[in-house]
């Protein structure tokens, strides 16, 4: 059978996750850079963005440090990170994975409001979007370039 079935499902999962993460990052950046639209962000939107990003970051930390105790299973059950995305990040940071995990923890604290968000931490969020976007685009191309 054609590979379209598998790839289209993979594309959809990846695109859905990308949208959720990217829009959450946009919310955080609007606030951080104090852009014109920042005042229109509702408390609910902000809480949703914080929750989404914290879940993703927690999953990444757990994946890159599997020996550490994990969060209770029912916390963010619905969130599943595509393995190709995780692999991309791991390859990118394999030389300094412990530092990267520490950075992700700091980003997590920042998105949860426990510490201020800085330009460096935002760069990590942008990198998540960038890697996920690259993977999503690549899969979409495979749907039509055989």
């Amino acid at each position, binding site marked *: *059978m054609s590979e379209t079935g*598998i790839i*289209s499902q993979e594309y959809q999962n990846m695109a859905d996750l990308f949208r959720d993460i990217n829009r959450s990052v946009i919310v955080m950046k609007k606030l951080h850079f104090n852009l014109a639209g920042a005042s229109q962000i509702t408390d609910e939107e902000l809480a949703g963005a914080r929750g989404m990003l914290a879940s993703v970051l927690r999953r990444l930390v757990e994946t890159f440090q599997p020996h550490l105790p994990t969060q209770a299973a029912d916390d963010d059950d619905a969130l599943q990170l595509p393995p190709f995305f995780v*692999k991309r990040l791991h390859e990118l940071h394999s030389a300094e994975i412990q530092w990267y995990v520490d950075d992700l923890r700091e980003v997590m604290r920042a998105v949860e409001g426990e510490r201020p968000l800085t330009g460096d931490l935002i760069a990590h969020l*942008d990198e998540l979007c960038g890697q996920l*976007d690259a993977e999503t685009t690549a899969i979409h191309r495979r749907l039509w370039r*055989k």
Partner: protein
Amino acid sequence: MPAEFFSGQARLLYARCHTLLKRLNSFNHLPDELQPYAQDLGRMVSKIATGLQKLLDDPDFGAAPLLLNQFDDYKRFAELVDIIEWHPLSLLDHYNERDHHSYRFAKLFCEQIQYPYDPPLVNAHSNVYYSSLAAVNMVSVPLSDDKHLLSTPDFVHELGHIVFAHVWKEFIQQFMEYFQPYIEDGKAKAANRASPRVYQDHFDMLETAWDRYVQEFFCDVFATYLVGPAYGWSHLRLVLSTQDELYHPTFGERGTHPADESRTRIILASLDEMGADTEAGRIREKWAALTSIFVDKPDGEYALCYPDDILLKLSRQSLRVCRELDLVAFFDQPKDDNNLPSLMQEAWEQFHRDPDSYPQWEAAKTEALKSSIGYLSPTC
């Protein structure tokens, strides 16, 4: 400058959405029963247009710190428009009698198995054998599909991809509960091997690959549950015509589909699980005879990729999902002429009984089926 270019592109995509909506609204040639599909597509395109409008209306549209995020957001809209325009919309634009026959076939099949979702649209002029696009609920089948029966179980496999899109989250989560320990164990054992890093990397690759394989295996079990041995025979037929993927991907290789041999094993395991062990035995025998003459043989590490134990657990998990969805198993289908799961089984039985006269039998059956599908669905 990049912001202006981007703004122009976003506006063009917005205009393209409206062109497509206009086209959709002009589809007067479609049978009534397809109108809901056209309406669904219209809603999807409208939603994209609304999303684009929201993006363009954002007071921070084009702001330097957000430009890349916004551009990537736009790209997702553009990709979705591509998928809708190139697949279901093109099909509906050129919709013909053969497409409609295949749709009716799919619809009747879905009714008979108690399929819990809307039947898919069917494109009857596929250029990639059987395929599916779950995002737009569409299956593509080969041009001659309405004249033949032995490959129709492959349509059922494609339907499995659409079901998987509904159940994947929970399914993958449960699967990982028994697959993850296998990978961890493999990596731990690899530490004692001659080239531990290579083995560990290969186990990492295997873990990633199974994220795709699991869906394909699910679809194999799904089809086996619904049409029984007919799917096993259909798989054998397909393997005969390709052969090159028999034991590939093996350990350290990548691929979208698991090796054909492993797929045969999960199909046979599923038949055994459902009590169809006599038929499973016949397929097993034929498989052994065929593969004994093929040149391709498994390498020493092939078994690491597709362990029996994992395949059996995956088969049981997939069968459980089929039962939970209240789908009708092949052995519970009535044996009448209009029952498609039974007809797929009967076709293979007839082929085995008398391969030489099979083409005449098949021609008579597909002709009768054509009339009965029209008769059973008088709105055609």
